[in-house]
């Protein structure tokens, strides 16, 4: 029975990178979503239209 090599720093580096990227990506998307929806609210009254019919009301489906 050999002693397992000590390579914990690599393990933590890997998980840190993975979680950081996922969080940044998710945070980036929710930030973009908020700013886009703010634009949408500001634009709607000025044109008096809903844009494309199927693009209307982007509902909250991102809660799996």
């Amino acid at each position, binding site marked *: 029975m050999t002693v397992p*090599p000590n390579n914990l720093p690599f*393990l933590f580096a*890997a998980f840190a990178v993975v979680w950081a990227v*996922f969080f940044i990506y*998710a945070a980036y*998307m929710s930030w973009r*979503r908020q700013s886009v929806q703010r634009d*949408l609210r500001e634009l709607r009254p000025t044109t008096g239209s809903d844009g494309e019919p199927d693009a209307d009301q982007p509902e909250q489906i991102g*809660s*799996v």
Partner: protein
Amino acid sequence: MLTAALTIVDGYLIFVVAPTDQVLGHIQRIFYIHVPISILSFLGFLVCAVAGIGYLIRRGEMWDRVAHASAEVGVVFVTLALITGVIWARPVWGVWWTWEPRLTTTLILWLIYVAYLMIRHYAPTPQQGRAWSAVVGIIGFVDVPIVYYSVQWWRSIHPVQVIGPEAADDALEPIMARILVFSLIAVLALFTYLLLERVALRGAEDAVSAIRRQGNYE
């Protein structure tokens, strides 16, 4: 919520429940996240190619949104697969990078789908961007198996220098296999969550640009 719960349980399984590999040590735990992420990135590009074909045939906006979202999420996943692969290779194989078939194919895959995202960005009109990226997605997906086999043949002539202990692929204990499957489900949930978020974001972006275009014509 489900995604968050699954990933937390997965983290517990990986760090606490999973036995430490006797040969490779703690680093072997990367395996539980590296493998699902790699598999899911391939799934992302499969979805992208299918949605691209769907867009070219049916012309629905939704097909295109799914294709775009899955390509972007796929690129994020491939990037992470490459990074975790590099971090895995250093302590296990003794080198940061080796031109091993799977690693090389993954890198080519990354390049193709970065080009896919570039083409959307550079297309003069949204319609062109949709059609062009759909055909690039299809070509890229057809190309990947050929790349894999050619790299494998190429490698069989110039073998990779593997330093350090080698991991035996079939030496997976049952508990390890079960944790791997659980990780796959957790990462799949994460993938689905990010994909749906991205599709919804694309929908909102499209709505804004549609209004902007209308505003310009008035």
